[in-house]
């Protein structure tokens, strides 16, 4: 590739890069993401749901006795409910989205 053509190609790449990378600075978009606390709590909720399902499977496959499972399930559900309540509180505390 000849020198001028290579230079032209590199300049075109530079222009494309500048346009692409500076896009958010030129046109800031309204944030559509979850607030950090909600995201953290939702991750905790998913982990708790998984734990509940694991305990249930452990019980069904005979790894947990009926008594142990009942006790564990109660504890886990209480923990899950606490996370859900926390999610509710966090959701209520957030400013309501615009129309």
């Amino acid at each position, binding site marked *: *590739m000849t*020198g001028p053509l*290579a230079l032209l*190609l*590199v300049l075109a*790449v*530079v222009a494309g*890069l500048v346009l*692409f*990378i*500076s*896009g*958010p*600075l030129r046109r*800031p*978009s309204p*944030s*559509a*993401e*979850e*607030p*950090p606390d909600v*995201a*953290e709590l*939702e*991750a*905790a*909720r*998913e*982990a708790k*749901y*998984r*734990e*509940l*399902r*694991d*305990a*249930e*499977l*452990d019980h*069904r*496959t*005979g*790894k*947990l*006795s009926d008594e*142990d499972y009942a006790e*564990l399930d109660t504890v886990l*559900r209480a923990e*899950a*409910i606490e996370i*859900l*309540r926390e*999610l*509710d509180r966090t959701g209520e505390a957030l400013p309501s989205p615009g129309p």
Partner: protein
Amino acid sequence: MAVVGRALLILALVVALYGIGASLFGARTRRREWVDSGRRAVYALAGLATLAFAILEVAFFRSDFSYNVVAQHSSTTTPTFYKLAAAWSSQEGSLLLWVFLLSVWSSLILFLTRRKVREIAPYATAVLLGFGAFFTSLAVFFANPFATSANPPAEGAGLDPLLLHPSMMIHPPMLYSGYTLLTIPFAFAVGALVTGRLGAEWISVTRRFALAAWLFLGVGILLGARWSYTELGWGGYWAWDPVENAALMPWLCITAFIHSIMIQEKRGMLKIWNASLVLGAGTLSILGTFLVRSGILNSIHAFGASTLGVPFVTLIGAMVIGSIGLIVWRREQLRSDARLESLWSREAVFLFQNMVLVAMVLVVFWITFFPLISQALTGTKVSVGPPAFRPFIVPLALILVLLSGIGPIIAWRRVTVANLRRGFVLPVAAGLVTLIVLLVVPGGPSSRPFALIMFALAGFVLTGVVQELWRGVAARRAITHDAVPVALVGLIRRNRRRYGGYIVHAGLAVLLVGVAASSSFQHSQDVLLSPGQKAHVDGYTIRYVRPVESVTEQKIAFGAVLNVSKGGKHVTTVTTTRNFYPSQDPNDGLIGKFFDTANSDSAVGLDAGLRRDIWTVINVQTAPLAGLINQGNNVFAKYAPQVMTQAATLPPARAQQAMNMLWTERDVAVAEIAHRFVTHPWKTEFLLIVDPLVTWIWLGALIIGGGGLIALWPVPTLARRRAAAPQAARPSGPPPVPVREPA
């Protein structure tokens, strides 16, 4: 295009540096647009690295020897398949591959988390771009893949013969994918520690990438072992070579992390431990990359002399000090939310397993680096080999297999004696039966206690996994009334992490049975044979039937057809060859360059089976041809300059014709000399090995890979929707708990 390639690399460095600044500025000032701009810098880096890598690949494909790296690592006779793979055989190309893979994986995680981990992501972006800037700057300032020569050679040096193996296309990219993927959990862990957001979210977004790193690195390691077994001609698959160890250490570390992270998810425990593991694995991945390229430790993999020692050591030092500093700074927030309730629980087993894995990492690290440590302290560089590792690694591996069998059987939090009994009776019985049967079988493995224990433990593990699958299927069938195969598929689909993990444990047991058997009961013989002579190995008779020879543009192959029989019955016929590739050493002479043993490799004659492998390799010495080779060198040393001088005075077409005649005459002479191996065969050295259960290693690896893929595969959309349903449908009243579903 080399100028464009170089310009793209410089732009990549500028973009990475800008992205670091934009991400950190956005994170500090909470200005979203700067964070978004920083993320786009990662996408741009991926685009630039892809273009630069494509330019380099095209140069290799076209055999454009104006690129120094192409001239040094490829030739016109290199097959196209290997021309494309030759890019990463060079230091320059492998650095570019690193940047390319890192930027692609980084783009993927940052795209997937663009609306999540809002506070952590900018710092993770800065760390990932930091790695990108580091490797790009190495390519720009120290090992430029686009360096060119004003007077390119007519022919390249060619690819190192040892690298002419199909694995060359997959093994290095797999390892590098593993290494680069390990930087992602590392970067998000740094982000979580910097922001103090150490809850479940950063783990949930990076867990899959940690698992992918584990899978890629594991596949890379196993492909390397297979390559070693079929190509290197020493009869083994694992030599405890520093570069093998450098890949094994982060793999062990991330294996521990994948397990202990479950304890943090479920119980909020082991936060310091997990942060240390993920930061350690990330640091070890950079160490691994460094060792491949540095040559600071004697290794068959160290293809280049070190020019990058100082930058790499600086980066590794910064990672170690930074990681320790962050953990110490956040030690209060990293305290556990809960305590271990019982030593008889899955989390306790995971904890023990973690300790064993970390002990293995420490052992491997210490012995691998002992030559350097010894040199620093005493001035003498000692060499260590496999015997130094075995006394530590073998007992640790046995404990690991035992724990990998207990883990699936035992429940989280606590278990009762009755449930323990119910879970353990069958697997323990299977382990004991295996032990007893092997003890009483005549000629069994009783003479090798470690192997014997490994076989018994494998019986325990495999039975435990089958039992768990069966019980899961029974539980599912009790609700769905599906047929067994349907219930099994449904069970695994709905519990991918759990059953994918169990399958990995089964694969590990199978693999380690192969390792124990093949390393304890290998029979090998080094023999000198003439055609018609035979040798006996482990009851097999191996006869050297006839020599074979072939001359092609790429290589001269001297081989042997070997007939294997047992008890008078034919078992198999194998062919092994020694391949000689044209060397670029001018001292070899015009004929001798085709017979240089330093430029040769082996093709193993292998008959693989479930019970045993018959592995053979020929080691042809060209000394008996030395007289003829010297004679040919002398003739052509006089003749070639005469032809060249004469050609210089002729018109181009005639000159080309004259040169072609010269090369044709040389090729005829080479073929005649090579043919002497068949017409006047001499005593040739063979390494003959009968090795039991080696195939189990590759089968185990396939099972592990399959289990890993199952665990990695995303949860079905329907299941995810159901799991999310309670939240989505939640009214303002008391929050509901998850709906119970079939297992």
